[in-house]
């Protein structure tokens, strides 16, 4: 029995890997995506386009505006006599500093040196950060630029951010991206392959083979589990080599997490294939799972913030646990309590989806 199963698995492997385009998609694309996303993604607010509207000969205003630019957060945008609101509505500027028309220094001397900061409210996180940065520069430099004695603000917070090095995003983002890529590859591989066989009619040839249902299912899914694990290994290695994402935890923890996750996603892919009549439906099914799963994985938005009614959905998302596990194992050294909790959840998911997939699979064979 074992030998026929192995032969079966080998045949599946050969089929999957025969197409060079498939190999590209399995091995090359994930690397490219890791690199691109790891380098590109940052939730830090940077490159804020700031326009300064002031009288043409207002040297104090210009000096202050330059201070903003040299702080490193802001990029200067020429105001060119345009109306401040117009600058924002057209998207030319994220924020506009509007100085008093009579001249900044003169107005300040008369106690009327109020400067207005118009901030584009489209993105709330951006708007808040813009204000925070602007205030920081303003309180440090405005008085001096206006030619007044610096007046320290009556109340200020000395803000300090701990664990700063990792705030430079790649090390933080990359584990999340890793999970997404592995999820994507395993789901679309599995759901499409099985459905395709059913559609093309080659499924019948397997049913007539001298194998038990259990073995047929194993034979069909084990290759994808293996491929998923290889994919995960590649992606983690790439994270280490390209971005220096450390592996502070134990390798066995990593392996367990990857196994639990891949088994879950392969089972879900199998489930999708059992309920799809054709490849188009399989694809839609894959999308219905993937889109929310990726969005709720934890790196896109703070999932802890979700309304109580919707939060259970997160606890049903295998990618959420896998991302948490990756972050924990890679960055925090695999804290045992947290690991145990997330790993247990993932293991339960793997068992549940695996059983469900097996039941449905058996049904389709009969």
């Amino acid at each position, binding site marked *: 029995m074992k030998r026929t199963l192995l032969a079966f698995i080998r045949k599946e492997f050969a089929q999957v890997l025969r197409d060079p385009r498939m190999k590209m*998609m399995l091995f090359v694309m994930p690397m490219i995506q890791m690199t691109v996303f790891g380098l590109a993604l940052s939730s830090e607010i940077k490159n804020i386009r700031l326009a300064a509207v002031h009288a043409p000969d207002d040297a104090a205003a210009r000096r202050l505006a330059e201070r903003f630019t040299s702080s490193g957060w802001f990029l200067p945008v020429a105001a060119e006599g345009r109306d401040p609101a117009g600058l924002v509505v057209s998207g030319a500027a994220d924020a506009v500093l509007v100085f008093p028309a009579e001249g900044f220094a003169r107005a300040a001397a008369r106690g009327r040196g109020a400067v207005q900061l118009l901030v*584009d*409210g489209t993105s709330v*996180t951006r708007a808040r950060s813009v204000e925070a940065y602007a*205030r920081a520069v303003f309180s440090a430099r405005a008085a001096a630029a206006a030619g007044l004695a610096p007046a320290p603000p009556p*109340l200020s917070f000395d803000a300090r951010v701990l664990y700063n090095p990792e705030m430079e995003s790649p090390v933080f983002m990359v584990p999340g991206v890793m999970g997404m890529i592995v999820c994507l590859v395993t789901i679309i591989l599995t759901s499409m392959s099985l459905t395709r066989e059913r559609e093309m009619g080659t499924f019948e040839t397997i049913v007539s083979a001298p194998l038990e249902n259990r073995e047929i299912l194993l034979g069909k899914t084990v290759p994808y589990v293996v491929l998923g694990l290889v994919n995960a290994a590649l992606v983690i290695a790439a994270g280490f080599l390209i971005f220096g994402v450390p592996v502070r935890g134990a390798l066995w923890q990593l392996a367990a997490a990857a196994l639990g996750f891949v088994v879950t996603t392969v089972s879900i892919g199998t489930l999708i294939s059992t309920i799809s009549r054709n490849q188009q439906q399989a694809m839609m099914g894959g999308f219905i799972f993937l889109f929310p799963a990726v969005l709720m994985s934890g790196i896109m938005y*703070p999932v802890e913030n979700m309304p109580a009614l919707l939060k259970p959905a997160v606890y049903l998302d295998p990618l959420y646990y896998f991302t948490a596990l990756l972050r924990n194992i890679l960055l925090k050294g695999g804290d045992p309590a947290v690991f145990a909790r997330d790993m247990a959840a993932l293991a339960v998911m793997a068992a549940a989806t695996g059983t469900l997939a097996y039941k449905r699979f058996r049904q389709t064979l009969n």
Partner: protein
Amino acid sequence: MTFFDPRRAAAVARKEVMHILRDPFTLVLVLGLPVVLVVFFGFAIDFDVKNLRLGVYDRDNTRHSRQVASVFESSGYFLPEGASSPADAARGLDSGRYSAALLIEPGFGRDLGRGAPARVQFIVDGTDNSKAQAVLGYLPGITSAALRKTGAPAAADPVPLATRYMYNPELNSRWFVIPGLAVIIIGLLSILMTALTVAREWENGSMELLLSTPLRPAEIIAGKIAPYVLLVLGGVFFVNLVARLGFGVPFRGSHPLFLSGTLLFALACLSQGIVISVITRQQQLAMQLSMISGLLPSLLLSGFIFPVESMPPFFRYFTMILSPRWFMEAARGITIRGAGAADLALPLLALCGLCALLLAAAFRKFKTDLEP
């Protein structure tokens, strides 16, 4: 034989409509799924981090210092807890028990009362980048609230900075998320819909039959895109209805402009699907390619959540080939800022360009050769 015959293209379009109608599952999905996802994530996504445990170490213990701590609480974002010592606060930050810590030294209340500059230490856990940024973003508001509450006699600030948030004075983060969500979902579904249609005809052998007639590739492409444009517009309509009526997202711009932008975006995405279908000629590969080229780039690189401006310069240019990136700008601009055609000239032109490029690619890559 002409290059493009509308009658033949129309025949292909009619057939495609029949296929769509005979697959109610996909139909319902395309019209209904965007609404479901927008409703779910419209409620789920909230960038205002709340319930932040704040370790408060108050050695000053005056009325003013307690008032400052209470302002943190009344902001609605923080849950202050007493910390016994700075070391205790540090441990709390380390273990993740606290998201931030407030350390008030003795003399704070006195300084504030005298109008001398009073300073307080505020430490943020930087493990979660966006969370830390959000926390820092709350400080200006808390500072002004604290000043108001303590009523401290402050020397009138000769150069006050008055901030005004335009278009979204209440800082409703849903207004940012929901149009973005709509763009992403519609874009992705558009790609997926057309990605399989040409590949399917190759796989089941019907393409050979089509090509044995005078039918030209351009007619196949046009005929296959046309019905889906209508479908996409239907999906967009329902999503916008939900956004406006359900979530109160404003719509300040011009409807015809938004419609044109949507059409361009839909065309670009549908064309992307067709290109994938044409070059893969196999449904499974088409699906993989469309998911890989669609799902993650759309979600991550279009400016939906991660700002394009924060990307390194190379990637900022790279995202220019993504149609969701451009329509994201346009959609948000029209919806929230009421931007006009002149303001959005760049994104709209870019969408036109992408459309043309993708359609040309689909046409040129349409190999009519059959395997041996």
